[in-house]
């Protein structure tokens, strides 16, 4: 029985993926396109978070540091060493993985709550550090100059990862990243690492007694999460062509990433995607309609959502769907 459902789910996934691929050709408004790109980006960030936070149950509230590691590494390498952002992305991911190991090694030995607090602390330290590090832009941030074509206009270049005339490639790259992460999550869900992550989340000591090297697998989850978050950081840098500590390292970003996954349903494959499709439009709408006070209001909404989810529906939207279907 379960096999049929798995095939059914894969087919649904492929159909939806196809729909998303066709979408930009049907709806070509730049505003919508931008919204979709943001949805894909945050879905990706939430999926990456889900590996360590949802599956392994280690709540990280500092994933923004990996986002920044990716964005800053590729940008700095681009500006100072004229390295293509694609290579910069890999360098960023490697840096993020090392950071994850350095942070995780001591902190994972502490209980889950301490891990969350430690990640908040590290995030705040990173923010303060980057805001004062003038060599990499400090609080003013870094701007990536346009790559100009023959006539001097900002052009489209795959090598330098910039698409200024036709922004469509950004859409497809973001979509591809989201789909890759969904595929990875689905693979984890069905195979040994995912089983071990979930065992650790449910009962660490029982997992140990069954031969699970708990520290090693927590680190694995964290490293995977960090690497993909960093890749998305490079994407973000090349999409906006501007990065600064506030946009990449703020605590609210780390919280938002976690919230999207939690809203959608932790530890599920679809949850983070669902969460992003719901939360990001809400965030953008509130920002647009409430003008300058938009930023504070979306924080209030996030807070309220955290409370509501925790109290009424800890399993998130995915859990709600299951309940409605009467399972």
């Amino acid at each position, binding site marked *: *029985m*379960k096999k049929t459902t798995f095939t059914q789910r894969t087919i649904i996934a492929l159909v939806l993926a196809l729909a998303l691929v066709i979408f930009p050709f049907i709806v070509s408004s730049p505003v919508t396109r931008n919204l979709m790109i943001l949805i894909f980006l945050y879905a990706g960030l939430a999926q990456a978070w889900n590996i360590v936070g949802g599956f392994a149950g280690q709540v990280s509230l500092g994933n923004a540091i990996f986002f920044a590691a990716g964005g800053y590494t590729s940008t700095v390498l681009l500006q100072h060493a004229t390295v293509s952002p694609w290579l910069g992305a890999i360098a960023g991911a490697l840096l993020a993985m090392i950071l994850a190991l350095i942070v995780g090694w001591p902190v994972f030995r502490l209980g889950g709550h301490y891990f969350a607090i430690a990640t908040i602390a590290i995030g705040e330290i990173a923010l303060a550090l980057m805001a004062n590090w003038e060599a990499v832009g400090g609080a003013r941030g870094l701007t990536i100059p346009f790559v100009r074509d023959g006539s001097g206009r900002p052009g489209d270049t795959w090598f330098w990862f910039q698409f200024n005339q036709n922004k469509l490639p950004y859409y497809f790259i973001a979509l591809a990243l989201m789909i890759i992460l969904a595929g990875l999550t689905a693979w984890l869900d*069905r*195979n*040994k690492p995912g*089983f*071990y992550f*979930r*065992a650790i*989340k*449910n*009962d660490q*000591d*029982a*997992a*140990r*007694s*069954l*031969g*699970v*090297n*708990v520290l090693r697998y927590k680190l694995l989850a964290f490293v995977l999460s960090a690497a993909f978050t960093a890749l998305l950081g490079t994407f973000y840098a090349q999409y906006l062509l501007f990065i600064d500590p506030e946009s990449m390292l703020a605590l609210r970003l780390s919280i938002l990433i976690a919230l999207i996954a939690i809203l959608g349903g932790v*530890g599920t494959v679809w949850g983070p995607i669902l969460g992003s499709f719901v939360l990001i439009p809400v965030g953008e709408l509130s920002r647009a309609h409430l003008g300058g006070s938009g930023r504070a209001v979306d924080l209030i909404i996030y807070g309220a959502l955290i409370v509501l989810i925790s109290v009424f529906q800890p399993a998130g939207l995915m859990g709600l769907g299951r309940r409605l279907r009467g399972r």
Partner: protein
Amino acid sequence: MALLEIQGLTKTFGGLTAIDDLSFRVEEGEILGLIGPNGAGKTTVFNCVSGFYEPTRGRLHFAGHDITGWAPHRICRLDMARTFQIVRTFSDLSVLENVMVGAFSRTGNRAQAERAARHVLGLTGLAAKAGVRGGSLTIADKKRLEMARALATKPRLLMLDEVMAGLNPTERQAAVELVRQVRAEGITILMVEHVMEVIMPISDRIVVLNYGRKIAEGRPETIARDDQVIAAYLGKKYRSRR
């Protein structure tokens, strides 16, 4: 050579001595029962042997290795498995998935792990409940699941911590039957138990603990008549009743 050898094990927690200079062996293929009044230190012995506590003094040898101070997951890799006194089911995982976690200690392949898990589910009578969420099982089934999960790691030594507690007589019968089946598969069993009617008939040998010390060791019939054992359980007053 004995499969498990405990030499001079001592475990203190601050000022409290939970285990005091305990030594005994478990021979391959036998069922050894570990009994004693509440607080005698039985579960502490398990925790020391399985790597959850670090012994204060003494040495532990298993399958020819000195495992003193080893981490639990490493000991499991050496073919020792245990259950917990208060069941630790993976609540969010299904019965099958619970057992698969155990099976994955032997293989990285999902299909193989699933096959091995289903085999164990069949042996332990849980096949019908394979898809049920671990958290919603009855206590008897949770205990059964815990055994199945431990068995999936293909241990040479299985340590059972009060598997009979909380079971009604019918459930107990089934559990005893299961323990016998496990031994028939060639697995050595070290079991802690309170329920005398169960552990006496099933064990080849018994070790009795009181206040962290071994007060008797031998065949069940001998133990049942031992003065010190009777005194430990029933009080000195009953010692002279025979």
